[in-house]
């Protein structure tokens, strides 16, 4: 599970009543991939049509992660037929079958609203080179004094 990243969320968590925490703990998923702002993800969503149920894929860039605990949401932006579409998902929603991280983009800010004004190639984010730890980990860096490859975690 992702930890709350902002000071405000940490504050909210500490203020939450223990019994409320216990109750929502059953509603929290435990096997959530480590998604970050800038990642290109494929979200598999369950859709109900009458009695039937099928799943649909939605692919795009995460431009925003907001909230904490059960209220945590992420916004996925994609260009569909020339029109920008943004969908907000609850990270712990049972409607989400699976989240697959396809690419990890390098981003220097927490909210990528500037992508809304961009078209075409300029919407692409620099990719974080995946290391042995898999997609999403930090790039390797050279420290000049020692001249060795050191992994920063």
């Amino acid at each position, binding site marked *: 599970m992702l930890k709350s990243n902002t000071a405000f969320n940490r504050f909210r968590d500490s203020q939450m*009543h223990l019994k409320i925490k216990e109750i929502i703990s059953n509603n929290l998923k435990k096997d959530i991939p480590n998604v970050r702002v800038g990642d290109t993800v494929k979200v598999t969503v369950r859709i109900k049509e009458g009695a039937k149920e099928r799943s649909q894929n939605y692919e795009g860039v995460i431009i925003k992660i907001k909230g904490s605990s059960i209220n945590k949401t992420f916004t996925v932006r994609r260009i569909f037929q020339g029109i920008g579409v943004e969908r907000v998902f609850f990270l712990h929603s049972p409607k989400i079958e699976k989240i697959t991280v396809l690419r990890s983009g390098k981003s220097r800010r927490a909210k990528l609203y500037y992508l809304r004004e961009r078209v075409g190639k300029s919407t692409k984010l620099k990719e974080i080179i995946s290391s042995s730890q898999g997609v999403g980990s930090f790039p390797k860096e050279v420290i000049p004094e020692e001249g060795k490859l050191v992994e920063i975690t």
Partner: protein
Amino acid sequence: MTIPARTRPEILGKKLGMTQIFNADGDAIPVTVIELGENIVTDIKTPVKNGYAAIQLGTNIKKEKHLNKPKMGNLKKKNLPMFGYLKEYRVKPEELDAHKIGEQIDLSKILTPKELVDVTGMSIGKGFQGMVKLYNKQRGPKSHGSKSYRQPGSIGAHTYPGRVLPGKKMPSRMGNEKVTARNLKVIEFNKEKNVVLVKGAVPGVEGGMLTIRPSIKKWNV
């Protein structure tokens, strides 16, 4: 079943706060978590002795030093815990025999999921407020030399009646009054953790005392 609104059974609880949970369809539902009190019968008022039939419930156990002496003495005499919060509700006289002092009220009858309840509490105090916030009055213009930004405006006519009519709405204290949220759906009743989740918001601060009753609408069907 027709039960007059005055004799609806009551349950005492404490508001813990709000959160959300996912239902079977996967939709997020906003819920208020209410911790249920001990709900032990502390007194029975009979028509012969008190002139009316009622049951008094106690909850919110406190230390002995935090209770005043009349209250403490009364509870000690009946060999009951030190309840900090007592509240009574009317019942039909013939129903009195079913209760006795010291027994715990059966909560599961009222708090079955999908049932509707009314939740009563004291709303959050907002302090002394003007007409715009308190009564949704229109504000005056901001420009063209106007100075009546949030003024109450005229409060009555001149010579006749020559006075301000009683009951005229004026700026005053807002909040901190008894408010009932009606027809809230019971989402979950957790007997183990002694909490109930109702859909939507309920009046008052977190930690405030609440009264839960079956909703009138449903109860009179």
